């Protein structure tokens, strides 16, 4: 097709079709992959074939985008789960840290419900036996409140630790928990208390040195 051979009318028609096509492409560019070129198969027009091919391309592109956006959505969902898991691990589990030989530290964060208190006890007692621990420091700075039965359990856990031949220090007791302990009339014979984890560490370092 030689542009010079076209009549003015044909040129105008061509120009209009090109403009139509470009407007369709602007929809595509915005991100609407459902857009399609108008192909008039009744009239034989030189651009029909081109437009039909472009429609196929757009459809294919749109399908690919949909697939990749589904993929992206799935990836985000998985990342969210991993993030949830990481956050949950921090709060749900009880990391037992061996600060140095014979000294175990348990920094407790989050919510101390009944399930967690027993899980903590089991892990701790097992670790004390395995590592032949002499000093256990349990830091409950983040724990503002505990149910009375759970506090009771804590004290019994301290007793178990003593029975295993280790010393149990409790640090970061909140005023509320202190009140609960007093209110329940619990004996604190098996527990050494310090105001903070730092204080406890300083104390045990000096004990170990002597």
């Amino acid at each position: 097709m030689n542009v010079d051979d076209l009549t003015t009318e044909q040129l105008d028609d061509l120009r209009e079709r090109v403009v139509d096509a470009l407007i369709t492409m602007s929809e595509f560019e915005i991100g609407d992959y459902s857009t399609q070129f108008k192909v008039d198969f009744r009239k034989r027009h030189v651009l029909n074939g081109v437009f039909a091919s472009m429609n196929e391309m757009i459809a294919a592109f749109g399908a690919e985008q949909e697939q990749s956006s589904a993929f992206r959505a799935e990836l985000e969902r998985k990342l969210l789960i991993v993030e949830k898991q990481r956050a949950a691990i921090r709060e749900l589990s009880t990391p037992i840290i061996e600060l140095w030989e014979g000294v175990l530290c348990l920094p407790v964060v989050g919510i101390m419900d009944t399930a967690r208190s027993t899980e903590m006890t089991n892990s701790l007692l097992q670790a004390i036996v395995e590592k032949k621990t002499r000093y256990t420091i349990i830091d409950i700075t983040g724990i503002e409140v505990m149910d009375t039965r759970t506090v009771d359990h804590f004290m019994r856990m301290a007793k178990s630790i003593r029975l295993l031949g280790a010393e149990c220090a409790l640090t970061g007791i909140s005023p509320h928990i202190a009140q609960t302990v007093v209110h329940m009339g619990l004996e604190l014979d098996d527990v050494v208390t310090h105001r903070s984890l730092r204080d406890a560490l300083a104390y045990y370092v000096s004990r170990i040195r002597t």
Partner: protein
Amino acid sequence: MAMYEIRDPIDLYAPRQGVREIGANLGFGRNDCHELAIVVSELASNIVKYGVRGSILMESVQDAVRGAGLRLVARDQGPPFYDLKLALLDGFDDRGPIDPATLLKRGGLGTGLGAIVRFSDSFDVEALAVGKAIRVIRYRLRPKNR
């Protein structure tokens, strides 16, 4: 106000965080929010352990006498309480006292329901076509004699 699906242990994390935020927004103090988190935690743990799967709904309530509060509705698909009065006792389940071996196997202290009741102002259980619903309400202003 908020609904959480509960099926696995990891599902405990979100509602525990959520109730603290919702509680704070409703004007509950920090310790109160912490206690609410324990309530939610015990409810959710029970769903995971015995309820097969379920959900926890959190919504604000307003009582004519007691004022503003938060209602937690824990639904599960598990069996109903055989004897609720027994279950509420510390160290008991719905059939009777829990022996130490069983307690060890189940995890927990057998005092979860007790903790829920101690930290809330109203507690009731409704049997559903499948499973049950436990409704717990805690008011912002609690009577002084608790």
